[in-house]
């Protein structure tokens, strides 16, 4: 089958809040309103809509219809998407697929989460208590901490190297008015913050947050007609976790390695072509391991890579220019869409003080879901080019 090229014509997002002053529905509406205005289209031109939200934490069934109804966006195919932290990115993936396959000429993917008002407020997220490891007390922070512990045991890296990720991302966040946290932090502050799960301290774990983000995609014809700066979705790659309970190497992000390969193949690019990455840095060890999983350095060399400034401005590739989940905060279902909004701004050259110089190609990456026996439940990646 011949797929059509897909372009991003409009993006919008709210600030990422520690505690949003409005409801989850309203966060979604604000993001959509901004995206439609950004695209310069009539809302009635949107032919299909997908909305990602984690685990029904908004307390609503058919959350998308609730958000979109009073904006007059009903009457088109609409589907609610749930895959934990990957929800918003999968919503954009489905919008992409509709345009690529000719189902729609204009489609929209949205991610929304209001964790501060949900039953997850004030807690660390944990696997389902029906999972054999869930009932034993594992938390998401605990599982990532075990990756870190094994990595530090096997390779040349220290907790200080992990702290460098948090410090770098906070430095980037200082240039991002959409971020929850902007105050600079030092390595000493990161290391002396209270331990959540050894070796991860509180400043190596992303804070819960609230936010909404929307991405409108369309055919090349439509994008040209609107006269917008062209941002193409060169790859939209989605995969799921594979169940196993043998000796998985926890220092390798298996699902991300698979998803990256698909994305690079689809876009016809490799790590040398990429200028920036928005990755799933829910924990500092995550970003660390994604340097390797995406091919920016060899397995076991992430410590050297961060110490030498590889993933920073002036280095090989800028990781988390908006400050990542570590500083922006992590409104779970929103994050995947928010990363695509950031990458779009960067490719258009509209990212202000945090602009990645001459940004030509960007990766967004978000996994999702702690499910027993899986590396992660979902992984969604996009490669955007101008």
């Amino acid at each position, binding site marked *: 089958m011949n797929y059509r090229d897909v372009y991003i014509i409009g993006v919008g997002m709210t600030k990422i809040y520690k505690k949003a002053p409005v409801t989850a529905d309203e966060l979604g509406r604000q993001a959509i309103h901004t995206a439609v205005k950004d695209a310069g289209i009539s809302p009635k031109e949107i032919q299909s809509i997908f909305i990602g939200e984690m685990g029904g934490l908004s307390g609503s069934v058919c959350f998308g219809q609730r958000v979109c109804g009073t904006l007059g966006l009903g009457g088109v195919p609409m589907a609610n998407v749930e895959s934990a932290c990957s929800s918003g990115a999968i919503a954009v993936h489905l919008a992409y697929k509709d345009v690529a396959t000719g189902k729609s000429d204009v489609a929209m993917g949205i991610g929304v989460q209001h964790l501060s008002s949900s039953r997850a407020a004030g807690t660390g997220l944990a696997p389902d208590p029906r999972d*054999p*490891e869930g009932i*034993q007390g594992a*938390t998401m922070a605990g599982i990532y901490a*075990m990756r870190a512990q094994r990595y530090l*045991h096997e390779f040349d890296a220290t907790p200080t190297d992990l702290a460098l990720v948090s410090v770098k991302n906070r430095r980037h966040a200082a240039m991002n008015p959409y971020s929850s946290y902007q105050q600079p932090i030092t390595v000493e502050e990161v290391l002396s913050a209270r331990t959540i799960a*050894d070796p991860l301290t509180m400043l190596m774990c992303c804070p819960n947050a609230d936010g909404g983000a929307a991405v409108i995609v369309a055919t090349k014809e439509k994008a040209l007609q609107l006269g917008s700066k062209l941002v193409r979705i060169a790859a939209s790659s989605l995969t799921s976790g594979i169940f196993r309970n043998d000796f998985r190497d926890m220092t390798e992000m298996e699902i991300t390695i698979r998803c990256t390969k698909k994305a690079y193949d689809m876009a016809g690019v490799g790590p040398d072509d990429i200028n920036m990455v928005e990755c799933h840095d829910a924990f500092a060890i995550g970003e660390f391991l994604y340097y390797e999983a995406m091919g920016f350095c060899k397995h076991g060399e992430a410590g050297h890579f961060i110490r030498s400034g590889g993933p920073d401005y002036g280095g090989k590739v800028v990781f988390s220019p908006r400050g990542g989940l570590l500083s922006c905060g992590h409104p779970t279902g929103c994050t995947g869409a928010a990363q695509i909004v950031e990458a779009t701004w960067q490719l258009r050259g509209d990212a202000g003080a945090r602009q990645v110089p001459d940004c030509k190609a960007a990766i967004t990456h978000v996994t999702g879901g702690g499910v027993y026996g899986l590396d992660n439940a979902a992984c969604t990646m996009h490669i955007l080019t101008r």
Partner: protein
Amino acid sequence: MEEQVIYHPDFFVIPEGGEKPYLIAFRCEECGKTWFPILPYCPNCWSEKFDKRELRKGKLYTYTIMYTPQKGIKPPLAFGYIDFPEEGVRVGAQIEVGADVEKIKEQIKIGMEMEVKAGVIREDASGKDVISYKFTPAV
């Protein structure tokens, strides 16, 4: 005595008469892959026939000490993955190292031999103690 709930009776055995407790892994008779805990079908080949394998001693692959565990569990909580090389299975569970929780970190090392024991792993939603498997340094 407070009421207690034993979790996973189908793959965790506490023998009567003081023998050490053990876990049961399930080896697929068709493809030879081993799974823990019990599954209705082999995820690899969909066979429904399994041999039972006893898991008693393994090696610590990695661990953490959680200071912010789930509700119903008192911190600090040590948790680790234990590899059983013969059976090809990894099991994640709580680690118990003794009464002195302050020194917990000094007592756990990657690669150390661990064995199965029984103990209270948490309170359930109604406040009852839940008894299940844990790991402890092998003696």
